[in-house]
Protein backbone atom coordinates (compact mmCIF):
# COMPACT_ATOMS: atom_id res chain seq x y z
CA UNK A 1 0.00 0.00 0.00
CA UNK A 2 1.50 3.29 -1.04
CA UNK A 3 -0.27 5.76 1.19
CA UNK A 4 1.17 9.19 0.58
CA UNK A 5 1.84 11.17 3.70
CA UNK A 6 0.59 14.69 4.16
CA UNK A 7 1.31 17.60 1.87
CA UNK A 8 3.08 15.98 -1.00
CA UNK A 9 3.06 18.59 -3.72
CA UNK A 10 0.23 17.60 -5.99
CA UNK A 11 -1.06 19.73 -8.79
CA UNK A 12 -4.54 20.56 -7.58
CA UNK A 13 -7.27 21.09 -10.05
CA UNK A 14 -9.38 24.24 -9.62
CA UNK A 15 -11.14 24.02 -6.29
CA UNK A 16 -14.84 23.57 -5.97
CA UNK A 17 -15.52 26.24 -3.42
CA UNK A 18 -18.37 28.70 -3.16
CA UNK A 19 -17.16 32.27 -2.79
CA UNK A 20 -18.32 32.72 0.81
CA UNK A 21 -16.13 29.78 1.90
CA UNK A 22 -13.08 30.88 -0.09
CA UNK A 23 -11.37 32.58 2.83
CA UNK A 24 -12.02 29.71 5.27
CA UNK A 25 -10.08 26.47 5.34
CA UNK A 26 -11.95 23.70 3.48
CA UNK A 27 -13.71 20.99 5.47
CA UNK A 28 -12.57 18.20 3.17
CA UNK A 29 -9.77 17.80 0.70
CA UNK A 30 -9.13 14.67 -1.30
CA UNK A 31 -5.75 14.56 -2.98
CA UNK A 32 -5.10 11.99 -5.69
CA UNK A 33 -7.46 9.53 -3.97
CA UNK A 34 -7.84 6.14 -5.59
CA UNK A 35 -8.64 2.47 -5.01
CA UNK A 36 -8.03 -0.61 -7.09
CA UNK A 37 -9.95 -3.86 -6.73
CA UNK A 38 -7.63 -6.44 -8.27
CA UNK A 39 -6.75 -4.87 -11.59
CA UNK A 40 -9.79 -2.61 -11.72
CA UNK A 41 -9.27 1.04 -10.95
CA UNK A 42 -12.63 1.76 -9.31
CA UNK A 43 -11.62 5.31 -8.41
CA UNK A 44 -8.57 7.03 -9.79
CA UNK A 45 -6.89 10.37 -9.03
CA UNK A 46 -9.93 11.83 -7.32
CA UNK A 47 -9.31 15.44 -6.27
CA UNK A 48 -11.93 17.53 -4.57
CA UNK A 49 -12.10 20.39 -2.09
CA UNK A 50 -15.30 21.06 -0.21
CA UNK A 51 -16.00 24.34 1.53
CA UNK A 52 -17.04 24.69 5.13
CA UNK A 53 -20.71 25.35 4.41
CA UNK A 54 -20.96 24.08 0.87
CA UNK A 55 -23.60 21.83 -0.63
CA UNK A 56 -21.68 19.80 -3.16
CA UNK A 57 -22.97 17.17 -5.55
CA UNK A 58 -21.38 14.04 -6.90
CA UNK A 59 -23.07 12.75 -10.02
CA UNK A 60 -22.35 10.27 -12.74
CA UNK A 61 -23.82 7.29 -14.56
CA UNK A 62 -24.45 4.00 -12.74
CA UNK A 63 -21.26 2.25 -11.69
CA UNK A 64 -19.16 5.39 -12.00
CA UNK A 65 -17.79 4.92 -8.47
CA UNK A 66 -19.81 7.45 -6.51
CA UNK A 67 -20.71 5.21 -3.57
CA UNK A 68 -17.16 3.84 -3.61
CA UNK A 69 -15.97 7.37 -2.88
CA UNK A 70 -18.30 7.58 0.13
CA UNK A 71 -16.93 4.25 1.29
CA UNK A 72 -13.38 5.57 0.90
CA UNK A 73 -14.19 8.74 2.83
CA UNK A 74 -15.68 6.71 5.70
CA UNK A 75 -12.94 4.05 5.55
CA UNK A 76 -15.30 1.19 4.75
CA UNK A 77 -12.68 0.65 2.02
CA UNK A 78 -9.04 1.54 2.55
CA UNK A 79 -7.78 3.77 -0.28
CA UNK A 80 -4.96 2.24 -2.32
CA UNK A 81 -3.37 5.65 -2.74
CA UNK A 82 -3.99 9.29 -2.04
CA UNK A 83 -4.73 11.44 0.98
CA UNK A 84 -7.95 12.59 2.65
CA UNK A 85 -7.71 15.73 4.74
CA UNK A 86 -10.61 16.43 7.08
CA UNK A 87 -10.36 19.90 8.62
CA UNK A 88 -6.77 19.92 7.39
CA UNK A 89 -5.88 16.70 9.21
CA UNK A 90 -4.91 13.46 7.50
CA UNK A 91 -7.44 10.77 8.44
CA UNK A 92 -5.18 7.92 7.41
CA UNK A 93 -5.40 4.98 9.83
CA UNK A 94 -8.73 5.87 11.42
CA UNK A 95 -11.51 3.27 11.58
CA UNK A 96 -15.06 3.85 10.34
CA UNK A 97 -16.24 4.65 13.86
CA UNK A 98 -13.34 7.04 14.46
CA UNK A 99 -14.05 8.80 11.15
CA UNK A 100 -17.55 9.49 12.40
CA UNK A 101 -16.23 10.90 15.65
CA UNK A 102 -13.83 13.05 13.60
CA UNK A 103 -16.84 14.63 11.89
CA UNK A 104 -18.07 12.72 8.84
CA UNK A 105 -21.59 11.29 9.03
CA UNK A 106 -23.34 9.45 6.22
CA UNK A 107 -26.55 7.89 5.02
CA UNK A 108 -26.80 4.78 2.90
CA UNK A 109 -28.09 4.10 -0.60
CA UNK A 110 -30.08 1.13 0.68
CA UNK A 111 -31.52 2.31 3.98
CA UNK A 112 -29.77 0.98 7.06
CA UNK A 113 -31.84 1.93 10.08
CA UNK A 114 -31.99 0.15 13.41
CA UNK A 115 -35.30 -1.45 12.47
CA UNK A 116 -36.33 -2.74 15.89
CA UNK A 117 -35.50 0.44 17.80
CA UNK A 118 -37.95 3.30 17.97
CA UNK A 119 -37.48 6.42 15.87
CA UNK A 120 -36.31 8.34 18.91
CA UNK A 121 -33.91 5.57 19.94
CA UNK A 122 -32.39 5.58 16.46
CA UNK A 123 -31.44 9.20 17.03
CA UNK A 124 -30.38 8.93 20.66
CA UNK A 125 -28.16 5.96 19.81
CA UNK A 126 -26.36 8.23 17.36
CA UNK A 127 -25.66 10.62 20.25
CA UNK A 128 -23.96 7.82 22.19
CA UNK A 129 -20.46 9.17 21.54
CA UNK A 130 -21.49 12.50 23.08
CA UNK A 131 -22.84 10.89 26.26
CA UNK A 132 -20.75 10.31 29.34
CA UNK A 133 -22.61 8.22 31.92
CA UNK A 134 -21.11 4.76 32.35
CA UNK A 135 -22.51 1.24 32.63
CA UNK A 136 -23.06 1.46 36.41
CA UNK A 137 -24.94 4.75 36.07
CA UNK A 138 -27.05 3.03 33.45
CA UNK A 139 -27.80 -0.13 35.43
CA UNK A 140 -28.64 1.72 38.64
CA UNK A 141 -30.35 4.64 36.84
CA UNK A 142 -28.31 7.13 38.86
CA UNK A 143 -28.89 10.92 38.55
CA UNK A 144 -26.33 11.19 35.75
CA UNK A 145 -28.45 8.74 33.72
CA UNK A 146 -31.63 10.77 34.10
CA UNK A 147 -29.86 14.06 33.38
CA UNK A 148 -28.25 12.89 30.15
CA UNK A 149 -31.24 10.87 28.99
CA UNK A 150 -33.38 14.00 29.37
CA UNK A 151 -30.95 16.04 27.29
CA UNK A 152 -30.79 13.52 24.44
CA UNK A 153 -34.56 13.04 24.53
CA UNK A 154 -35.07 16.77 24.04
CA UNK A 155 -32.42 16.99 21.35
CA UNK A 156 -33.95 14.02 19.53
CA UNK A 157 -37.36 15.69 19.48
CA UNK A 158 -35.73 18.90 18.29
CA UNK A 159 -34.07 17.05 15.41
CA UNK A 160 -37.29 15.22 14.57
CA UNK A 161 -39.09 18.56 14.33
CA UNK A 162 -36.92 19.45 11.31
CA UNK A 163 -38.88 16.91 9.30
CA UNK A 164 -42.08 17.23 11.39
CA UNK A 165 -41.66 13.66 12.60
CA UNK A 166 -42.21 14.15 16.36
CA UNK A 167 -45.41 12.15 16.23
CA UNK A 168 -43.48 9.08 15.08
CA UNK A 169 -41.00 9.27 18.00
CA UNK A 170 -42.23 6.07 19.67
CA UNK A 171 -42.90 4.10 16.48
CA UNK A 172 -40.57 1.30 15.41
CA UNK A 173 -38.19 2.64 12.75
CA UNK A 174 -38.89 -0.37 10.55
CA UNK A 175 -42.60 0.43 10.47
CA UNK A 176 -42.14 3.91 8.96
CA UNK A 177 -43.03 4.58 5.33
CA UNK A 178 -40.10 4.61 2.92
CA UNK A 179 -39.70 8.36 2.63
CA UNK A 180 -39.80 8.82 6.40
CA UNK A 181 -37.12 6.15 6.79
CA UNK A 182 -34.85 8.11 4.42
CA UNK A 183 -35.45 11.28 6.41
CA UNK A 184 -34.80 9.48 9.70
CA UNK A 185 -31.47 8.28 8.35
CA UNK A 186 -30.49 11.88 7.65
CA UNK A 187 -31.50 12.88 11.18
CA UNK A 188 -29.54 9.99 12.66
CA UNK A 189 -26.46 11.14 10.77
CA UNK A 190 -27.04 14.73 11.95
CA UNK A 191 -27.33 13.58 15.55
CA UNK A 192 -23.65 12.61 15.55
CA UNK A 193 -22.73 16.32 15.23
CA UNK A 194 -20.85 16.09 11.95
CA UNK A 195 -19.05 18.85 10.08
CA UNK A 196 -19.55 17.01 6.79
CA UNK A 197 -22.73 15.16 5.91
CA UNK A 198 -22.61 12.55 3.15
CA UNK A 199 -26.00 11.78 1.62
CA UNK A 200 -26.21 8.77 -0.68
CA UNK A 201 -29.22 9.29 -2.97
CA UNK A 202 -31.40 11.06 -0.38
CA UNK A 203 -34.28 11.54 -2.83
CA UNK A 204 -34.38 7.98 -4.15
CA UNK A 205 -37.96 6.72 -4.17
CA UNK A 206 -39.46 10.09 -3.28
CA UNK A 207 -42.18 11.78 -5.33
CA UNK A 208 -41.64 15.31 -6.79
CA UNK A 209 -43.33 17.12 -3.92
CA UNK A 210 -41.37 15.14 -1.33
CA UNK A 211 -38.19 15.90 -3.27
CA UNK A 212 -38.97 19.60 -3.32
CA UNK A 213 -39.47 19.53 0.45
CA UNK A 214 -36.23 17.61 0.88
CA UNK A 215 -34.33 20.26 -1.07
CA UNK A 216 -35.60 22.93 1.31
CA UNK A 217 -34.70 20.72 4.26
CA UNK A 218 -31.15 20.11 3.08
CA UNK A 219 -30.65 23.84 2.63
CA UNK A 220 -32.07 24.67 6.04
CA UNK A 221 -29.97 21.93 7.67
CA UNK A 222 -26.88 23.48 6.11
CA UNK A 223 -27.92 26.93 7.33
CA UNK A 224 -28.87 25.89 10.87
CA UNK A 225 -26.02 23.52 11.58
CA UNK A 226 -23.41 25.38 9.47
CA UNK A 227 -22.12 22.15 7.99
CA UNK A 228 -21.03 20.99 4.56
CA UNK A 229 -23.09 18.49 2.59
CA UNK A 230 -21.82 16.18 -0.14
CA UNK A 231 -24.59 14.31 -1.89
CA UNK A 232 -24.90 11.65 -4.53
CA UNK A 233 -28.12 11.98 -6.49
CA UNK A 234 -29.64 10.97 -9.78
CA UNK A 235 -32.44 13.53 -9.59
CA UNK A 236 -30.91 16.30 -11.74
CA UNK A 237 -33.56 18.78 -10.69
CA UNK A 238 -32.45 18.45 -7.06
CA UNK A 239 -28.75 18.48 -7.88
CA UNK A 240 -28.89 21.52 -10.15
CA UNK A 241 -31.09 23.41 -7.71
CA UNK A 242 -29.27 23.04 -4.43
CA UNK A 243 -25.66 22.15 -5.22
CA UNK A 244 -23.19 25.00 -5.42
CA UNK A 245 -20.43 22.82 -6.78
CA UNK A 246 -20.77 19.61 -8.73
CA UNK A 247 -18.26 16.94 -9.64
CA UNK A 248 -19.10 14.48 -12.42
CA UNK A 249 -17.64 11.02 -12.21
CA UNK A 250 -17.37 8.50 -15.04
CA UNK A 251 -15.46 5.21 -14.87
CA UNK A 252 -13.89 6.25 -11.57
CA UNK A 253 -12.48 9.56 -12.87
CA UNK A 254 -13.70 13.10 -12.50
CA UNK A 255 -14.61 14.32 -15.97
CA UNK A 256 -15.93 17.72 -14.98
CA UNK A 257 -16.14 20.02 -11.98
CA UNK A 258 -17.84 23.34 -11.54
CA UNK A 259 -21.07 25.21 -10.96
CA UNK A 260 -24.40 23.69 -12.10
CA UNK A 261 -24.35 25.92 -15.19
CA UNK A 262 -20.87 24.79 -16.20
CA UNK A 263 -21.85 21.16 -15.80
CA UNK A 264 -25.06 21.44 -17.77
CA UNK A 265 -23.19 22.85 -20.77
CA UNK A 266 -20.15 20.62 -20.58
CA UNK A 267 -19.94 18.46 -23.73
CA UNK A 268 -18.07 15.66 -21.94
CA UNK A 269 -20.82 15.36 -19.33
CA UNK A 270 -23.51 15.26 -21.99
CA UNK A 271 -21.54 12.57 -23.74
CA UNK A 272 -21.15 10.51 -20.57
CA UNK A 273 -24.87 10.59 -19.92
CA UNK A 274 -26.33 10.55 -23.42
CA UNK A 275 -23.57 9.25 -25.65
CA UNK A 276 -21.87 10.91 -28.63
CA UNK A 277 -23.86 12.41 -31.45
CA UNK A 278 -23.49 10.40 -34.63
CA UNK A 279 -21.52 12.21 -37.30
CA UNK A 280 -23.84 13.06 -40.14
Amino acid at each position, binding site marked *: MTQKTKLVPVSREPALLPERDADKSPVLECIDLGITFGGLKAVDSFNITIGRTEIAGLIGPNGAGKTTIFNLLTKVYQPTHGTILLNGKDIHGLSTAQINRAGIA*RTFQNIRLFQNLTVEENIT*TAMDTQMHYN*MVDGILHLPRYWREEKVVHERALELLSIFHMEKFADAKAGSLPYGAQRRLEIL*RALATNPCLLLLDEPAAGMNPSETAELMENIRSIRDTFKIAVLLIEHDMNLVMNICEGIAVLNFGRIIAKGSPDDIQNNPEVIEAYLGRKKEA
Partner: protein
Amino acid sequence: MTKAKKKFFSLKKTTRIDLATYLGVIIAFVVMTVLKDGGALNRKTLGLLVPICCYMSMAVSLNLTVGILGELSLGHAGFMSVGAFSGVIVSQSLLTAVPSAPVRLAIAMIVGASFAALVGLLVGTPVLRLQGDYLAIVTLAFGEIIADLVNCLIVGYDASGLHILFNLSGKKTIDDLGLDAAGYAIIKGAQGATGTKTIASFTAGFVLVMLTLVIVLNLTRSRAGRAIMAIRDNHIAAQSIGLNLTKYKLMAFVTSAALAGAAGALYGLNYSSLQSVKFNFNTSILVLVFVVLGGLGNIWGSLLSAAALTILPEALRQFADYRMLVYAVVLILVMLATNDPQFKTFFAKLLPHRHSAEEKEG
Protein backbone atom coordinates in the same frame (compact mmCIF):
# COMPACT_ATOMS: atom_id res chain seq x y z
CA MET B 1 -59.59 4.77 36.72
CA THR B 2 -57.54 5.59 39.80
CA LYS B 3 -54.68 8.05 39.74
CA ALA B 4 -52.03 5.36 40.11
CA LYS B 5 -53.56 3.42 37.27
CA LYS B 6 -53.58 6.48 35.06
CA LYS B 7 -49.97 7.16 35.84
CA PHE B 8 -49.12 3.54 35.03
CA PHE B 9 -50.69 3.78 31.59
CA SER B 10 -49.01 7.09 30.82
CA LEU B 11 -45.63 5.36 31.09
CA LYS B 12 -43.81 4.07 28.04
CA LYS B 13 -44.84 0.61 26.92
CA THR B 14 -41.39 -0.86 27.66
CA THR B 15 -41.40 0.65 31.16
CA ARG B 16 -44.86 -0.83 31.78
CA ILE B 17 -43.73 -4.29 30.69
CA ASP B 18 -40.62 -4.04 32.90
CA LEU B 19 -42.67 -3.05 35.96
CA ALA B 20 -45.17 -5.84 35.29
CA THR B 21 -42.28 -8.32 35.04
CA TYR B 22 -40.87 -7.28 38.43
CA LEU B 23 -44.34 -7.41 39.93
CA GLY B 24 -44.97 -10.89 38.51
CA VAL B 25 -41.75 -12.25 40.00
CA ILE B 26 -42.50 -10.70 43.40
CA ILE B 27 -46.04 -12.13 43.42
CA ALA B 28 -44.78 -15.56 42.39
CA PHE B 29 -42.20 -15.43 45.19
CA VAL B 30 -44.74 -14.41 47.84
CA VAL B 31 -47.21 -17.10 46.73
CA MET B 32 -44.57 -19.83 46.71
CA THR B 33 -43.23 -18.74 50.12
CA VAL B 34 -46.71 -18.84 51.62
CA LEU B 35 -47.33 -22.28 50.11
CA LYS B 36 -43.95 -23.50 51.30
CA ASP B 37 -44.41 -22.29 54.86
CA GLY B 38 -47.96 -23.61 54.91
CA GLY B 39 -46.60 -27.05 54.02
CA ALA B 40 -48.67 -27.26 50.84
CA LEU B 41 -45.73 -28.27 48.65
CA ASN B 42 -44.38 -31.78 48.35
CA ARG B 43 -40.68 -32.60 48.62
CA LYS B 44 -40.21 -32.75 44.87
CA THR B 45 -41.58 -29.25 44.27
CA LEU B 46 -39.59 -27.85 47.20
CA GLY B 47 -36.42 -29.24 45.68
CA LEU B 48 -37.22 -27.52 42.40
CA LEU B 49 -37.56 -23.99 43.79
CA VAL B 50 -33.87 -23.07 43.79
CA PRO B 51 -33.05 -24.72 40.42
CA ILE B 52 -35.97 -22.86 38.84
CA CYS B 53 -34.58 -19.55 40.11
CA CYS B 54 -31.14 -20.49 38.73
CA TYR B 55 -32.54 -21.43 35.35
CA MET B 56 -34.64 -18.26 35.21
CA SER B 57 -31.53 -16.22 35.82
CA MET B 58 -29.63 -18.29 33.23
CA ALA B 59 -32.37 -17.77 30.65
CA VAL B 60 -32.58 -14.01 31.21
CA SER B 61 -28.81 -13.62 31.05
CA LEU B 62 -28.54 -15.74 27.90
CA ASN B 63 -31.29 -13.64 26.39
CA LEU B 64 -28.95 -10.66 26.77
CA THR B 65 -26.44 -12.36 24.47
CA VAL B 66 -28.78 -14.12 22.07
CA GLY B 67 -31.84 -11.89 21.97
CA ILE B 68 -30.50 -8.42 22.67
CA LEU B 69 -26.95 -8.63 21.30
CA GLY B 70 -27.98 -11.08 18.59
CA GLU B 71 -24.94 -13.37 18.92
CA LEU B 72 -25.46 -17.09 19.34
CA SER B 73 -23.80 -18.56 22.43
CA LEU B 74 -23.77 -22.35 22.83
CA GLY B 75 -21.69 -22.50 26.00
CA HIS B 76 -23.76 -20.70 28.60
CA ALA B 77 -23.62 -23.75 30.89
CA GLY B 78 -19.83 -23.42 30.79
CA PHE B 79 -20.06 -20.07 32.59
CA MET B 80 -22.52 -21.62 35.03
CA SER B 81 -19.95 -24.35 35.66
CA VAL B 82 -17.18 -21.82 36.32
CA GLY B 83 -19.47 -19.99 38.75
CA ALA B 84 -20.66 -23.18 40.42
CA PHE B 85 -17.25 -24.68 41.16
CA SER B 86 -15.56 -21.41 42.12
CA GLY B 87 -18.56 -20.68 44.35
CA VAL B 88 -18.34 -24.08 46.01
CA ILE B 89 -14.60 -23.70 46.61
CA VAL B 90 -15.06 -20.25 48.17
CA SER B 91 -17.98 -21.31 50.33
CA GLN B 92 -16.24 -24.46 51.57
CA SER B 93 -13.00 -22.64 52.38
CA LEU B 94 -14.82 -19.96 54.31
CA LEU B 95 -16.76 -22.44 56.46
CA THR B 96 -15.06 -21.34 59.68
CA ALA B 97 -14.07 -17.81 58.68
CA VAL B 98 -17.64 -16.76 57.78
CA PRO B 99 -20.09 -18.74 59.89
CA SER B 100 -23.19 -16.92 58.62
CA ALA B 101 -24.63 -18.94 55.72
CA PRO B 102 -26.34 -16.05 53.83
CA VAL B 103 -23.17 -13.93 53.93
CA ARG B 104 -21.09 -16.88 52.72
CA LEU B 105 -23.60 -17.52 49.95
CA ALA B 106 -23.43 -13.88 48.86
CA ILE B 107 -19.62 -13.97 48.82
CA ALA B 108 -19.67 -17.24 46.86
CA MET B 109 -22.06 -15.81 44.29
CA ILE B 110 -20.02 -12.64 43.86
CA VAL B 111 -16.82 -14.66 43.43
CA GLY B 112 -18.59 -17.04 41.04
CA ALA B 113 -19.83 -14.09 38.99
CA SER B 114 -16.37 -12.50 38.93
CA PHE B 115 -14.67 -15.68 37.74
CA ALA B 116 -17.30 -16.27 35.07
CA ALA B 117 -16.94 -12.63 33.95
CA LEU B 118 -13.17 -13.04 33.70
CA VAL B 119 -13.54 -16.21 31.64
CA GLY B 120 -16.19 -14.49 29.51
CA LEU B 121 -13.76 -11.65 28.87
CA LEU B 122 -11.05 -14.12 27.83
CA VAL B 123 -13.40 -15.97 25.47
CA GLY B 124 -15.12 -12.88 24.14
CA THR B 125 -12.19 -10.52 23.52
CA PRO B 126 -10.77 -12.32 20.48
CA VAL B 127 -14.05 -13.67 19.11
CA LEU B 128 -16.29 -10.62 19.36
CA ARG B 129 -13.95 -8.60 17.16
CA LEU B 130 -15.17 -10.73 14.25
CA GLN B 131 -18.43 -10.58 12.38
CA GLY B 132 -20.34 -13.82 11.89
CA ASP B 133 -21.14 -16.99 13.76
CA TYR B 134 -17.73 -17.47 15.34
CA LEU B 135 -19.04 -16.93 18.85
CA ALA B 136 -21.31 -19.98 18.53
CA ILE B 137 -18.39 -22.20 17.49
CA VAL B 138 -16.01 -20.91 20.16
CA THR B 139 -18.53 -21.05 23.02
CA LEU B 140 -19.50 -24.57 21.97
CA ALA B 141 -15.85 -25.62 22.33
CA PHE B 142 -15.50 -23.59 25.53
CA GLY B 143 -18.36 -25.49 27.20
CA GLU B 144 -16.69 -28.83 26.44
CA ILE B 145 -13.25 -27.62 27.56
CA ILE B 146 -14.53 -26.30 30.90
CA ALA B 147 -16.28 -29.62 31.65
CA ASP B 148 -13.02 -31.51 30.98
CA LEU B 149 -10.91 -29.07 32.98
CA VAL B 150 -13.15 -29.35 36.03
CA ASN B 151 -12.91 -33.12 35.70
CA CYS B 152 -9.15 -32.82 36.27
CA LEU B 153 -9.49 -30.48 39.22
CA ILE B 154 -8.63 -31.64 42.72
CA VAL B 155 -9.08 -29.09 45.47
CA GLY B 156 -8.73 -29.36 49.23
CA TYR B 157 -8.59 -27.02 52.17
CA ASP B 158 -6.67 -27.17 55.43
CA ALA B 159 -5.09 -24.86 57.99
CA SER B 160 -2.45 -23.68 55.51
CA GLY B 161 -5.05 -22.66 52.94
CA LEU B 162 -6.28 -23.92 49.57
CA HIS B 163 -4.54 -26.78 47.78
CA ILE B 164 -5.21 -27.03 44.07
CA LEU B 165 -3.99 -29.82 41.81
CA PHE B 166 -4.53 -30.43 38.12
CA ASN B 167 -4.88 -34.16 37.58
CA LEU B 168 -3.83 -34.08 33.94
CA SER B 169 -2.17 -37.50 34.07
CA GLY B 170 -5.30 -39.05 35.56
CA LYS B 171 -3.26 -40.85 38.25
CA LYS B 172 -3.41 -38.35 41.08
CA THR B 173 -5.89 -38.58 43.92
CA ILE B 174 -6.91 -36.46 46.83
CA ASP B 175 -4.03 -37.93 48.86
CA ASP B 176 -1.51 -36.14 46.64
CA LEU B 177 -2.69 -32.78 47.97
CA GLY B 178 -0.89 -33.41 51.25
CA LEU B 179 -3.64 -32.06 53.47
CA ASP B 180 -3.11 -32.00 57.22
CA ALA B 181 -5.27 -33.95 59.65
CA ALA B 182 -8.03 -31.34 59.84
CA GLY B 183 -8.05 -30.74 56.08
CA TYR B 184 -10.89 -31.81 53.83
CA ALA B 185 -11.43 -32.26 50.10
CA ILE B 186 -13.70 -29.86 48.22
CA ILE B 187 -13.49 -31.14 44.64
CA LYS B 188 -12.34 -34.66 43.90
CA GLY B 189 -11.60 -34.71 40.19
CA ALA B 190 -14.12 -36.71 38.18
CA GLN B 191 -16.28 -37.24 41.26
CA GLY B 192 -16.84 -33.50 41.34
CA ALA B 193 -17.61 -31.50 44.44
CA THR B 194 -18.66 -33.68 47.34
CA GLY B 195 -19.65 -33.00 50.91
CA THR B 196 -20.61 -29.41 50.09
CA LYS B 197 -22.60 -27.74 52.82
CA THR B 198 -25.85 -26.76 51.09
CA ILE B 199 -26.61 -23.15 51.92
CA ALA B 200 -28.73 -22.12 48.92
CA SER B 201 -32.19 -20.87 49.79
CA PHE B 202 -35.31 -19.90 47.89
CA THR B 203 -34.97 -16.32 49.15
CA ALA B 204 -31.45 -16.15 47.69
CA GLY B 205 -32.86 -17.49 44.43
CA PHE B 206 -35.49 -14.76 44.42
CA VAL B 207 -32.87 -12.09 45.09
CA LEU B 208 -30.76 -13.50 42.25
CA VAL B 209 -33.66 -13.40 39.79
CA MET B 210 -34.55 -9.84 40.80
CA LEU B 211 -30.91 -8.71 40.51
CA THR B 212 -30.61 -10.35 37.10
CA LEU B 213 -33.79 -8.62 35.98
CA VAL B 214 -32.67 -5.21 37.25
CA ILE B 215 -29.27 -5.53 35.60
CA VAL B 216 -30.51 -6.84 32.25
CA LEU B 217 -33.59 -4.61 31.95
CA ASN B 218 -31.89 -1.42 33.11
CA LEU B 219 -28.87 -2.09 30.93
CA THR B 220 -31.20 -2.57 27.97
CA ARG B 221 -32.93 0.75 28.67
CA SER B 222 -29.67 2.67 28.95
CA ARG B 223 -27.37 4.04 26.24
CA ALA B 224 -25.37 0.80 26.30
CA GLY B 225 -28.49 -1.25 25.65
CA ARG B 226 -29.53 0.95 22.76
CA ALA B 227 -26.06 0.63 21.27
CA ILE B 228 -26.10 -3.15 21.73
CA MET B 229 -29.46 -3.47 19.99
CA ALA B 230 -28.32 -1.08 17.26
CA ILE B 231 -25.34 -3.34 16.58
CA ARG B 232 -27.70 -6.32 16.40
CA ASP B 233 -29.98 -4.54 13.94
CA ASN B 234 -27.28 -3.20 11.63
CA HIS B 235 -23.60 -3.30 12.46
CA ILE B 236 -22.56 -1.26 9.41
CA ALA B 237 -24.85 1.61 10.39
CA ALA B 238 -23.74 1.24 14.02
CA GLN B 239 -20.14 1.77 12.94
CA SER B 240 -21.13 4.72 10.80
CA ILE B 241 -22.51 6.56 13.83
CA GLY B 242 -19.27 6.07 15.73
CA LEU B 243 -20.12 3.14 18.00
CA ASN B 244 -17.27 0.94 19.21
CA LEU B 245 -18.69 -2.47 18.27
CA THR B 246 -16.25 -4.63 20.23
CA LYS B 247 -16.72 -2.64 23.43
CA TYR B 248 -20.50 -2.96 23.45
CA LYS B 249 -20.52 -6.60 22.35
CA LEU B 250 -18.08 -7.45 25.13
CA MET B 251 -20.16 -5.49 27.63
CA ALA B 252 -23.24 -7.59 26.86
CA PHE B 253 -21.38 -10.89 26.67
CA VAL B 254 -19.39 -10.42 29.89
CA THR B 255 -22.46 -9.24 31.81
CA SER B 256 -24.30 -12.30 30.58
CA ALA B 257 -21.42 -14.56 31.64
CA ALA B 258 -21.20 -12.95 35.09
CA LEU B 259 -24.91 -13.47 35.74
CA ALA B 260 -24.59 -17.10 34.63
CA GLY B 261 -21.70 -17.44 37.08
CA ALA B 262 -23.81 -16.11 39.96
CA ALA B 263 -26.62 -18.49 39.02
CA GLY B 264 -24.08 -21.33 38.88
CA ALA B 265 -22.77 -20.55 42.36
CA LEU B 266 -26.29 -20.69 43.78
CA TYR B 267 -26.99 -23.90 41.88
CA GLY B 268 -23.75 -25.51 43.09
CA LEU B 269 -24.46 -24.68 46.72
CA ASN B 270 -27.90 -26.26 46.47
CA TYR B 271 -26.50 -29.80 46.22
CA SER B 272 -24.10 -31.65 48.48
CA SER B 273 -22.49 -33.28 45.47
CA LEU B 274 -22.04 -31.86 41.99
CA GLN B 275 -20.36 -33.20 38.85
CA SER B 276 -19.13 -31.16 35.91
CA VAL B 277 -21.29 -33.30 33.58
CA LYS B 278 -24.27 -31.39 34.96
CA PHE B 279 -23.13 -28.38 32.92
CA ASN B 280 -22.65 -30.04 29.56
CA PHE B 281 -23.79 -29.15 26.07
CA ASN B 282 -27.32 -30.38 26.80
CA THR B 283 -27.68 -27.82 29.58
CA SER B 284 -26.51 -25.04 27.27
CA ILE B 285 -29.06 -26.09 24.70
CA LEU B 286 -31.73 -26.39 27.39
CA VAL B 287 -31.17 -22.76 28.40
CA LEU B 288 -31.16 -21.75 24.74
CA VAL B 289 -34.52 -23.48 24.35
CA PHE B 290 -35.88 -21.41 27.26
CA VAL B 291 -34.76 -18.25 25.48
CA VAL B 292 -36.09 -19.21 22.05
CA LEU B 293 -39.37 -20.46 23.43
CA GLY B 294 -39.86 -17.34 25.54
CA GLY B 295 -39.03 -15.14 22.57
CA LEU B 296 -35.71 -13.57 21.60
CA GLY B 297 -35.30 -10.32 23.50
CA ASN B 298 -38.44 -11.02 25.53
CA ILE B 299 -37.39 -11.09 29.17
CA TRP B 300 -40.64 -12.15 30.85
CA GLY B 301 -41.00 -14.83 28.20
CA SER B 302 -37.64 -16.27 29.26
CA LEU B 303 -38.76 -16.31 32.89
CA LEU B 304 -42.00 -18.13 32.09
CA SER B 305 -40.49 -20.71 29.76
CA ALA B 306 -37.61 -21.40 32.16
CA ALA B 307 -40.09 -22.09 34.96
CA ALA B 308 -42.46 -24.12 32.80
CA LEU B 309 -39.77 -26.23 31.13
CA THR B 310 -38.09 -26.98 34.47
CA ILE B 311 -41.33 -28.12 36.08
CA LEU B 312 -42.71 -30.07 33.10
CA PRO B 313 -40.01 -32.77 32.83
CA GLU B 314 -40.25 -33.35 36.58
CA ALA B 315 -44.01 -33.63 36.39
CA LEU B 316 -43.71 -36.03 33.47
CA ARG B 317 -40.86 -37.99 34.89
CA GLN B 318 -41.87 -41.28 33.25
CA PHE B 319 -41.45 -39.66 29.83
CA ALA B 320 -38.03 -38.24 30.64
CA ASP B 321 -36.47 -40.31 27.86
CA TYR B 322 -38.38 -38.28 25.30
CA ARG B 323 -37.51 -34.91 26.78
CA MET B 324 -34.95 -33.91 24.16
CA LEU B 325 -37.28 -35.13 21.43
CA VAL B 326 -40.10 -32.99 22.75
CA TYR B 327 -37.78 -29.97 22.98
CA ALA B 328 -36.83 -30.35 19.34
CA VAL B 329 -40.48 -30.54 18.33
CA VAL B 330 -41.37 -27.54 20.50
CA LEU B 331 -38.51 -25.52 19.00
CA ILE B 332 -39.64 -26.28 15.45
CA LEU B 333 -43.24 -25.40 16.30
CA VAL B 334 -42.19 -22.11 17.86
CA MET B 335 -40.07 -21.22 14.83
CA LEU B 336 -43.03 -22.00 12.61
CA ALA B 337 -45.38 -20.01 14.79
CA THR B 338 -43.16 -16.93 14.80
CA ASN B 339 -42.03 -16.98 11.18
CA ASP B 340 -44.76 -18.59 9.13
CA PRO B 341 -47.39 -16.05 8.04
CA GLN B 342 -50.09 -18.72 7.67
CA PHE B 343 -49.48 -19.92 11.21
CA LYS B 344 -49.58 -16.33 12.46
CA THR B 345 -52.90 -15.51 10.82
CA PHE B 346 -54.29 -18.77 12.17
CA PHE B 347 -53.38 -17.76 15.71
CA ALA B 348 -54.60 -14.22 15.13
CA LYS B 349 -58.00 -15.65 14.26
CA LEU B 350 -58.03 -17.77 17.41
CA LEU B 351 -57.26 -14.76 19.55
CA PRO B 352 -59.28 -11.83 18.20
CA HIS B 353 -58.67 -9.68 21.29
CA ARG B 354 -54.97 -10.34 21.49
CA HIS B 355 -54.04 -6.68 21.40
CA SER B 356 -56.21 -5.63 24.31
CA ALA B 357 -55.04 -8.66 26.27
CA GLU B 358 -51.47 -7.52 25.77
CA GLU B 359 -52.36 -4.08 27.02
CA LYS B 360 -53.74 -5.59 30.21
CA GLU B 361 -50.62 -7.66 30.77
CA GLY B 362 -48.32 -4.71 30.04
